[in-house]
């Protein structure tokens, strides 16, 4: 991790005072785009969340915190979406990061053709969610999907199931597709961190006849703590915003069992045949604040040094 070296260089670097034209030339375009297409839209979303755009002619009506009040007190679908997203974020994060660690350890312990496996296992990371989603819809197909075909093939046909059609399995089915896509990512990062571990530490543990599990829990994980924290936070944030895979596989159904906050925002904004962007903006704002809170909390809880590598 190069953070410390960067910091050192920043300190020893001789003062590079730059004339403002130069700064403007270099930073101008980026700042312009940032202000126009990030800062302003964010401000606009906050602003919109306080209004209801009502027919006719989309008159904006100021409602103050009205949108927030009805969102937090009355909206059953929002509650369901929050629950689903929470399950998705927690379970998905643990599965992604845990699975990645398992695969990385597997490759780290000298297996034949490790490079090849690494390349193959990483492939799903590169593939669009649209492709991943469609492939998994086919895998879960009741009549000719891989999963049911295999189940019927090994005589467990009674377990064959409409995986995406049953509210009790749909969320897990979508979650699995998502884990399939991202585990390889975590694996690669862990692998890099494993190779960066000082060899003598692992060697010393070997001499102590330390078992694999003990070595993992007492030596490897603590030493990789920054990586673990980074991956947990990255994965968690990603899943709090999950949209693509759900939208492609289930559109939030059946019976709202896979509705996430992001799909709900999209539905309210573009699918409900109303012209109102105020209410969905309010959902986005609430969710943004919640994500910020979670990131701060997780960073605090998981990293004793109180410093997150990524941000």
């Amino acid at each position, binding site marked *: 991790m190069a953070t410390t070296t960067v910091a050192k260089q920043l300190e020893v670097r001789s003062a590079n005072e730059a004339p403002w034209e130069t700064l403007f030339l270099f930073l101008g375009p980026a700042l312009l785009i940032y202000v126009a297409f990030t800062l302003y839209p964010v401000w606009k979303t906050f602003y*919109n969340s306080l209004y209801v755009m009502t027919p006719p002619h989309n008159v904006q009506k100021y409602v103050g915190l009205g949108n927030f009040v009805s969102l937090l007190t009355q909206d059953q679908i929002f509650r369901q979406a929050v629950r689903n997203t929470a399950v998705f974020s927690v379970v998905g994060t643990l599965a992604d990061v845990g699975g990645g660690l398992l695969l990385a350890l597997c490759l780290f312990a000298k297996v034949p053709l490790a490079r090849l496996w690494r390349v193959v296992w990483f492939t799903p990371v590169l593939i669009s969610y649209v492709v991943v989603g469609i492939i998994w819809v086919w895998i879960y197909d009741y009549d000719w999907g891989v999963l049911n075909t295999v189940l019927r093939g090994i005589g467990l046909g009674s377990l064959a199931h409409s995986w995406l059609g049953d509210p009790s399995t749909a969320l897990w089915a979508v979650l699995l597709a998502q884990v399939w896509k991202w585990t390889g990512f975590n694996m690669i990062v862990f692998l890099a961190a494993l190779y960066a571990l000082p060899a003598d530490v692992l060697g010393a543990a070997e001499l102590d006849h330390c078992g694999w599990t003990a070595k993992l829990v007492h030596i490897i994980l603590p030493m990789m703590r920054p990586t673990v924290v980074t991956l947990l936070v990255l994965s968690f944030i990603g899943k709090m915003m999950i949209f693509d895979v759900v939208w492609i596989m289930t559109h939030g159904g059946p019976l709202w069992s896979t509705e996430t906050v992001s799909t709900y925002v999209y539905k309210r904004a573009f699918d409900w045949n109303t012209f109102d962007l105020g209410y969905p903006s309010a959902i986005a704002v609430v969710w943004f604040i919640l994500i910020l809170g979670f990131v701060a909390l997780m960073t605090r809880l998981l990293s004793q040094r109180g410093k997150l590598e990524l941000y």
Partner: protein
Amino acid sequence: MRRLLAYTRKIPRLAFILACTVVTGGPFLWVTAMSVRTTPEILDHPYALPKRLHWEKFVRAWTTANYGSYFWNSTVVVVIAVALVVVIGAMAAHALARYRFCGSGLVRFLILSSMMLPPQMLILSLFQMMFRYGLYNSLSGLIIVYVATQLPLTVYLLESFFAQIPQDLFDAARLDGYSDFEIFWRITLPIALPAVFTTVTLNFILLWNEFLYAVVLLTDNSKRTLPLGIMQFMGGHQLDIGMVATGLMIAILPVILLYAFFSETIIRGMTAGAVR
């Protein structure tokens, strides 16, 4: 004897590795097979190997099923957006890494903190804005949005690479009479070329796969990018699994081809945000 024991101990692990490979690679092989089979063939035997390779499906997908135009749109949008974001981002990263100025901390904080902004915070108002400025349902609008969304990550990555270039080089260049822009153009970029290339591949793959902004900002069939085109076919008028599979292959192939040649760079690019 001990060697034999060692091998038997390894069997579960090898089985596990094999299983993982089947699970990750299998679906791709399946789709590959389906992409050269016709829908009736697939519905007869979903898992059979192609009896005859129906390459003409790719021609049909490209021409009559519109994948050619989707592919072209994706290429135009992604190439222009990546070029713009890397140039603009590199300039900003250079300034942040090289110069000390009042407010640089703020700029750094703003740009980096927006990396964890949920897209929903942007998309509703971007949608309104794009519309107001006539950029809705146009590839140019999507390019601008892509540049804006990828800018923070690009600046963040490039800045950390640029900052590692030894200062002596810059001092020497200045003594030689290089202007500020020449320093950027002739020193920073060439030296950090591998890092720039990593950033390019990362942005390319992220944008090639992007779905949410595209689905909100593009509606006209002739403007659709590949992910949208495939989705449109999937929920489409007729049941044509074979053609969807062909479309999936068209979307996957460029990425897989790149991956075959530059797997290390791409892996580095994709994980650059998490490991520095």
